């Protein structure tokens, strides 16, 4: 009986369930369910005949896409040229691409005219361009032109306002209606509405302007730049203020603002409201009425109290101690505090409606700033409170990356502007948005090298690639002509013995031709000989012959064993963006002389790995040759002593990390020895690049000591010149060396993978 009841019950249950599933919708309409009717969500109806509906367009219509228009494509493009001008300029209508085809992207700056006042900031911009690798002195070659007239401050009430620009421009024979010109501007318009007016006709020129508003911004044509002060450093630039990654952000304040409150006029709407969110605890929003001469005239009841509160806090202290910083519009849309907050790792909360954010064509600001709406100011506190601590940490790090990559110096701001324009010239050889927004930043990634992320040393982890499993041994040979020295033969043997060696490339840097192929040792891997020039910088030329990601750079007299090479290569695969090598040196600050010192002695630290025996990524050859300006390479060739320092400085500037030293079986010879040039017996022609300081070189063997110290001081000089050029000292020191796991442990040698590294 029990079971039967159970069955009946179950069946009823099942039938009710079924009824609900299939007929629920209908039942709901019956009277006893009418109470629920109001609650039910009224969705878009499932039309009974929905499958019979016609498509929005007949397939034929979609594929044929209308009638061919009256104008042919060529005619249409020609017609565009006359229609889309000035305020509707786009690259395809206002820029002459053909100027950039023959000589590539070259930038010409108009010569300075006498008696023409140029502000400090504008001369920094001009010198940034002149320092760039794109600069040309020949207007015939140029693709882009920069005026010598200072157009930064176009507020006609300002002292730096240049008059009669229109007239001057029209007298330039190269002006050409502004085509292919780039005009920089920081301030435009004036009281009371601070409109975008420049006070002259820019014609078809590209405008790189601060405080750009989205309405007058010509997308894909103009460039929005940040507002920066006249004290902004020319190069290098201060680093960001984030020294530690803490979660949750261990900061005193959540959100701060300290600035002027405009009582009237444009921008006053937002500034007037900022005091509402002040809570005196973790949100500090301080305003002062004091600005301009006649502020007391407009003064309201808050002013006196606000002014007192205002003085109680220090702006710098707030910047340092807050997680978020409000960056509201001022009279204009952009403000200095944007870059200040960025540097301080105080996440900018932007309240500047309609501001075209700096370099937004490249930079994804959503990763580094909170783009708020002026109208929703009062929601800002709760919105930022809801941001998860992990996200805050990511934001903070991104501000630091962006600051350092694109904003910390005038050079960077100007070069970013140029690179963005260059990227437009050939879209298929340009940086993807990812590249601009990931370390080490777009300026250090050359799309001419490759557009594939896997070809660069920086993105392996982010994209799940791994560096190639083989390396290329790259030997620079300078030995006596005619025959091969013993060391180079031994070296070739040792290197080709490595299971990871894919090929050996010898750069023959002697004037004498290399020995015939029969004289070279037989190796299991292909051996290529390249006839090089004499310059030292030549060894970092991006030779086509090098086909693997990893390069093992060697001097001919370097002595390495196969297991050293094997182990070092495995280490490099863990650190593909760094230089991994054997002999090292280090730099230090010499406070007595007030300059950088350099030492090759044994120390507890290292910051330079000699490229006489080092692994690094092939991409650094391209960076060295194409990214660095020719002047630096000339410097290195002239001093003939420090191409490896330059390489180390470059890699450190890119990665911000020290190089890595690995176990080395025995000490390598003092580097001076390798400088034995390809002398032909006693009668030697000094290499052209070394002519000037060649005196001690005439007999290097005899006066080794002097030569050593001469070379030493050369290298020290070089280091200081490089630090000067970069604007800071990029080298970073390390206190460690990587050894095999069981290195010199008290275990049986049989257990060890690299026993030979331990032999004295």
């Amino acid at each position, binding site marked *: 009986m029990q079971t039967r009841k159970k069955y009946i019950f179950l069946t009823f249950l099942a039938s009710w369930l079924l009824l609900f599933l299939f007929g629920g919708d209908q039942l709901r309409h019956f009277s006893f369910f009418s109470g629920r009717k109001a609650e039910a969500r009224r969705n878009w109806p499932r039309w009974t005949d929905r499958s019979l509906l016609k498509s929005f367009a007949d397939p034929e219509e979609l594929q044929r896409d209308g009638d*061919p228009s009256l104008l042919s494509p060529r005619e249409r493009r020609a017609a565009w040229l006359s229609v*889309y001008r000035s305020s509707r300029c786009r690259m395809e209508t206002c820029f002459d691409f053909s100027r950039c085809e023959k000589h590539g992207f070259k930038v010409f700056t108009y010569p300075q005219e006498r008696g023409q006042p140029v502000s400090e900031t504008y001369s920094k911009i001009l010198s940034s361009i002149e320092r760039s690798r794109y600069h040309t002195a020949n207007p015939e070659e140029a693709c882009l032109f920069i005026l010598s007239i200072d157009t930064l401050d176009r507020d006609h009430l300002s002292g730096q306002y240049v008059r009669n620009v229109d007239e001057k421009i029209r007298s330039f024979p190269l002006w050409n209606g502004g085509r292919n010109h780039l005009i920089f501007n920081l301030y435009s318009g004036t009281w009371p509405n601070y409109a975008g007016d420049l006070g002259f006709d820019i014609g078809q020129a590209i405008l790189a302007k601060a405080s750009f508003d989205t309405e007058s911004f010509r997308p894909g044509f103009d460039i929005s730049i940040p507002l920066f002060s006249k004290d902004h450093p020319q190069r290098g630039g201060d680093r960001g203020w984030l020294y530690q990654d803490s979660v949750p952000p261990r900061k005193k304040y959540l959100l701060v603002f300290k600035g002027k409150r405009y009582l009237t006029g444009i921008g006053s709407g937002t500034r007037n409201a900022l005091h509402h969110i002040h809570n005196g605890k973790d949100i500090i929003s301080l305003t002062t009425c004091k600005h301009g001469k006649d502020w007391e005239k407009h003064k309201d009841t808050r002013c006196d109290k606000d002014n007192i509160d205002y003085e109680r806090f220090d702006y710098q202290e707030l910047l340092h101690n807050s997680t978020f910083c409000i960056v509201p519009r001022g009279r204009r849309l952009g403000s200095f505090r944007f870059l200040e907050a960025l540097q301080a790792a105080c996440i900018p909360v932007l309240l500047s409606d309609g501001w075209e954010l700096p370099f937004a064509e490249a930079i994804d600001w959503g990763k580094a700033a909170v783009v708020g709406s002026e109208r929703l100011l009062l929601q800002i506190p709760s919105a930022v409170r809801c941001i998860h601590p992990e996200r805050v940490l990511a934001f903070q790090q991104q501000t630091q990356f962006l600051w350092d990559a694109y904003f910390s110096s005038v050079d960077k701001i100007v070069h970013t502007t140029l690179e963005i324009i260059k990227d437009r010239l050939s879209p298929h050889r340009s940086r993807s948005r990812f590249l601009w927004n990931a370390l080490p930043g777009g300026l250090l990634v050359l799309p001419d090298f490759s557009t594939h992320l896997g070809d660069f040393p920086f993105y392996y982890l982010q994209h799940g690639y791994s560096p190639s499993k083989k390396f290329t041994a790259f030997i620079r040979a300078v030995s006596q002509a005619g025959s091969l020295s013993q060391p180079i033969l031994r070296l070739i043997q040792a290197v080709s013995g490595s299971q990871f060696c894919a090929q050996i490339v010898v750069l023959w840097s002697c004037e004498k031709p290399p020995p015939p192929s029969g004289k070279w040792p037989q190796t299991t891997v292909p051996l290529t000989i390249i006839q090089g020039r004499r310059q030292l910088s030549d060894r970092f030329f991006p030779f086509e012959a090098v086909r693997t990601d990893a390069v093992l750079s060697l001097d001919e007299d370097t002595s390495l064993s196969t297991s050293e090479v094997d182990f070092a290569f495995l280490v490099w695969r863990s650190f593909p963006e760094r230089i991994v090598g054997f002999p090292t040196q280090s730099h230090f600050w010499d406070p007595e002389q007030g300059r950088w010192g350099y030492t090759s002695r044994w120390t507890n630290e290292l910051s330079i790995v000699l490229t006489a025996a080092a692994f690094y990524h092939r991409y650094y050859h391209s960076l060295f040759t194409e990214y660095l300006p020719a002047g630096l390479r000339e410097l290195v060739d002239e001093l003939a002593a420090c191409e490896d320092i330059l390489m180390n400085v470059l890699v450190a500037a890119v990665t911000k990390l020290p190089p890595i030293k690995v176990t080395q079986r025995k000490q390598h010879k003092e580097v001076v020895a390798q400088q034995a040039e390809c002398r032909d017996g006693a009668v030697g022609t000094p290499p052209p690049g070394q002519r000037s300081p060649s005196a001690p070189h005439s007999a290097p063997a005899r006066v080794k000591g002097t030569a050593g110290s001469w070379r030493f001081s050369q290298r020290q000089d070089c280091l200081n010149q490089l630090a000067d050029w970069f604007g800071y000292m990029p080298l970073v020191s390390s206190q460690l060396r990587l050894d095999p796991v069981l290195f010199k442990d008290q275990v049986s040698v049989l257990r060890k993978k690299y026993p030979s590294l331990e032999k004295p």
Partner: protein
Amino acid sequence: IMCASAKYNTRGPALIPRMKTKHRIYYITLFSIVLLGLIATGMFQFWPHSIESSSDWTVEKRSVHDVPVVKLPADSPIPERGDLSCRMHTCFDVYRCGFNPKNKIKVYIYSLKKYVDEYGMSVSNTISREYNELLTAISDSEFYTDDVNRACLFVPSIDVLNQNALRIKETAQAFAQLSRWDRGTNHLLFNMLPGGPPDYNTALDVPRDRALLAGGGFSTWTYRQGYDVSIPVYSPLSGEVDLPERGPGPRRYFILSSQMALHPEYRLELEALQAENGESVLILDKCTNLSDGVPAVRKRCYKNQVFDYPQVLQESTFCVVLRGARLGQAVLSDVLQAGCVPVIIADSYILPFSEVLDWKRASVVIPEEKMPEMYSILQSIPQRQIEEMQRQARWFWEAYFQSMKAIALATLQIINDRIYPYAAISYEEWNDPPAVKWSSVSNPLFLPLIPPQSQGFTAVVLTYDRVESLFRVITEVSKVPSLSKLLVVWNNQNKNPPEGSLWPKIRVPLKVVRTAENKLSNRFFPYDEIETEAVLAIDDDIIMLTSDELQFGYEVWREFPDRLVGYPGRLHLWDHEMNKWKYESEWTNEVSMVLTGAAFYHKYFNYLYTYKMPGDIKNWVDAHMNCEDIAMNFLVANVTGKSVIKVTPRKKFKCPECTAIDGLSLDQTHMVERSECINKFASVFGTMPLKVVEHRADPVLYKDDFPEKLKSFPNIGSL
């Protein structure tokens, strides 16, 4: 209120046991009754006019032809033309959206009506299949609301997908009489085929005032950046044809053009390319001599060869997408579906969803002027990149092109991201295909920072009751120069920690934290007392590490702040016999883990361990009282993709697996347990994140022939 879906399926179907024969009759009767009931409800469902209601919504089972008819008087108002200067802050009313914890906009859909003019002539096709699909998708999405007063965005049901299928003036009038029109504020219109002959404007010609336009085929002159949304032109073939994904790699043709109505000038240029490069370029056209019944849209011809469309697209590496009369082309969708890399030749075209999608990763854009150079430009792209673009193209189609639903949701998400930018979807989420999302890591500590030495580290000692040994550890660790604080985690609830006066006197603050439960995870809790970035986790019996070794460990951690830097190293191995992972503590040449009995790591990983540990690992570890260190190794490796750093030479450590008290047996159970942990964690993580390396870190001058007193860390490696 939002959790309505939870009402369904709370209980699975009940199993009915086998019936006895004598009861069968009852059940047959019962089932017949149920069946009858079901048939009856079924009749209701498919009886279109059975239930009439005053509301348009309460009845869902209706035909499109039954919607109310609205007559538009000839003089009813027409909205202003679209305002080119509109931006979110000028034309959009954000106050309607408000702040809400979910950060989701609310979208309302107007009910469907049929609009006719004064003479009863219909203004447009009531609704197309695609627009109905789009509205259905919105209605089913999280964005939807049926409460017009709570809505932030309004979507008219007036179908303007195809401008050629409607009457412009009257459609505009229909917009103007919508109940919340208000100059089009916060209204979103979807249009795929804008313009009409002969000019083919690039945006919908229907006057629409301030309404947002999701348009297919914008040019840079009509697109209001940050206001409008550029959408694809949907290709109905997407739904009809199933093209299975084809692995990336070289294909039969290099360049393929499949469009039918190309301008003769373009066709000439393409033919020139073909003449130059031979068979790797294939230029198809419509077929002229197809037999009846074969749909012309599904065939393409080259001379006398007939190809199936869109299947033929899969035979080519690159597929040309040229502008026609309009900029937006449905063929783009077909090309992406075929995993063919689109070569887009349409000057001034705003690519679909360009606000969020990185088209450089999936396509090649070539200026019209440069068409003659197309072949060499494409040849210069590295093969590996082409393969990635093929994958990316297919992914874009799957995620954003394949259905009207995908298009609708991406559009709403873009608008949502503008309104709640602090909750916006990231670049990676929009652009990375699932395969990349799986294989890549995004290191939370990505900025290359070397933390200042002055910060020091906090030593966290987990202890239960070994007071004597604990005190020795405290004394030893306190000698390390960079120690800034010592935290003792007292994990014994049954016993009080020793009195304050009994503790060793050390130069740095010493704090004791008492825990509520004896759990291993207490060791990794992000205590507020930890004020430094660096944490040294150390067991209460690790007394053999010298001050130099610990200080050096800290220096190494500073150079690798995103890694675990520890002393005893361990390895995981694949056991080919058992077909699973095995734990290895022997003297090996490789390491993949360090024990957290003595390891430095970033405090951030304490947060991750406590709050973000995947699956049930955290509880599992607490329950088994083992493997918390392996779990930490997995966690860090998984999130950073990097290996551990083992520092300094091997020493004799007093740890469970080194001192087998009871001979081999304990040792072996321990090893078995640890191996199990690795297998368990690997299955929870879905991958083996640990990285094997062959190196360890030593001081620069370790064991070098150099005076010991001049070395920074002389006392290293003593046993």
